[in-house]
């Protein structure tokens, strides 16, 4: 008929309007309320941490893929931005910026690219970066002195997260009531204390972000639910048995990286099981390990370690759990 070259391809001929980039963009949008709150409360310092983290992740990914791996760069998919954002939200605002950079190097150049880049890494890059820093720079990583923010916050004095204060006290042999009395705290004031990593700061902002992800169908709720459920269950049991040394469920869910981890990091597609039941086991494992570390370990909280440990089990979970196939029992 005419000489126009028409496209030919196997079916289907249309495609949903999503891409890796759009998925990552959704995650970034979902994280922005938490980031904004963090910047308001911790000011320029936090802004710098965020910037350094994101920019280093992106630049490292770009440089390494282009110059060392000689592959097309994958920064366009925005996954490095997500990694940088999550890494920054896991760090104290007072942290020296060169340490942030080291975290980015570990996340991108150790945990992600050697495995082949996006989609192939077995460990969550942001968490690997954070855990590496936690182990390497324990002093700086636990210095939660709040930096001056843009909005005034009452009682911005504490130099440690409630969790690490409590851990210290408990390791030192005192009980929770003694701890509260001696520090002039109430349990609820602990919850709203702001000496925390940026990401831990506002449960509300995180929750809004997570609901956005759920609505956009980016993630499914099973993993976070099973993490939080397991943690709540364990805390209820222990807290009931001995409220003097075991903290309760609300405290455990609201403090530390629990929400950030459960909502945004345990749900990373790449490093979590594909199947619902695999995901539930994954979540239960995370909850269990986190509580074990909280109650008995050296660290005040263990969300990052728990996720990283359960990342090791993902290939096995993917092997053992498959979705139910049509017409097969």
């Amino acid at each position: 008929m005419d000489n126009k070259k028409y496209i030919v391809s196997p079916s289907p001929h249309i495609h949903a309007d999503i891409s890796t980039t759009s998925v990552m963009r959704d995650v970034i949008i979902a994280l922005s309320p938490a980031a904004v709150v963090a910047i308001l409360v911790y000011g320029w310092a936090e802004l710098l941490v965020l910037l350094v983290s994101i920019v280093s992740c992106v630049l490292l990914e770009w440089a390494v893929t282009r110059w060392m791996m000689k592959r097309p760069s994958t920064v366009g998919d925005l996954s490095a931005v997500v990694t940088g954002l999550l890494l920054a939200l896991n760090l104290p605002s007072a942290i020296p910026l060169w340490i942030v950079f080291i975290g980015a190097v570990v996340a991108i150049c150790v945990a992600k690219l050697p495995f082949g880049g996006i989609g192939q890494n077995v460990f969550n890059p942001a968490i690997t970066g954070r855990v590496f820093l936690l182990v390497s720079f324990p002093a700086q990583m636990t210095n939660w002195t709040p930096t001056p923010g843009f909005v005034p916050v009452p009682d911005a004095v504490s130099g440690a997260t409630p969790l690490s204060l409590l851990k210290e006290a408990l390791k030192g042999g005192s009980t929770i009531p003694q701890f509260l009395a001696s520090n002039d705290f109430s349990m609820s004031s602990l919850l709203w204390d702001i000496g925390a990593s940026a990401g831990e700061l506002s449960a509300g902002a995180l929750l809004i972000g997570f609901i956005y992800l759920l609505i956009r169908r980016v993630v499914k709720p099973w993993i976070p639910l099973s993490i939080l459920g397991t943690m709540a269950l364990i805390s209820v049991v222990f807290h009931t048995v001995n409220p003097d040394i075991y903290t309760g469920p609300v405290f455990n869910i609201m403090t530390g990286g629990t929400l950030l981890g459960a909502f945004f990091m345990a749900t990373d597609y790449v490093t979590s099981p594909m199947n619902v039941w695999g995901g539930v086991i994954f979540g239960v494992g995370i909850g269990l390990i986190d509580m074990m570390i909280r109650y008995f370990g050296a660290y005040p909280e263990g969300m990052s370690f728990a996720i990283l440990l359960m990342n090791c089990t993902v290939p096995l979970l993917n092997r053992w759990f498959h979705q139910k196939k049509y017409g097969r029992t």
Partner: protein
Amino acid sequence: MMAAASTLKNMVLCLTLVCLICAAVVGVAYAVTKEPIDAAAQAKTTASIARVLPESDATPQEGSVRVGGTDYKYYKVDGAGYAIISTTSGFGGLLSLMVGVAEDGTVHNTTVLSHSETPGLGAKCTTDGNFISQFQGFNPAEKTLAVKKDGGDLDAITASTITSRAYALAVSNAVDVFHQLKQGGQDDE
């Protein structure tokens, strides 16, 4: 090069022979090194004692005492005090100290005999001058042998409260041993 055939006789003979020769070698090595080894161990002890107690010409006398269900080895140096070996659980495993307690009950000095703390963290208990020097001349009667976090008077090694705590506990135990020795007066061997 043809190896000998693998008959029962050959095999037994060969292996037994090799074992015999090796045994002889090891035996001789043992005999030869026995003294230097003992000497080295002795030297280490002597050096440690010398580090933790004021100078003295007296030869240390070894002894052992049971305090709180645990046996403590100690060296008594006449005129200088007691060098007490005290072990507690640190972060990564056991932390073994020699604590020199002078006759007046003050801690003269301490030294780490062995530990398995984390390099860069707890392991600094062997090198961190600020930390170690706190114990020199520490008077348990005036100050409390515990880290500040626990309401004591000692600054902990940065980011290594657990090790510092174990260290303080070991020293504190040694002081208790010292008092027991003073009270009980004699070895209870």
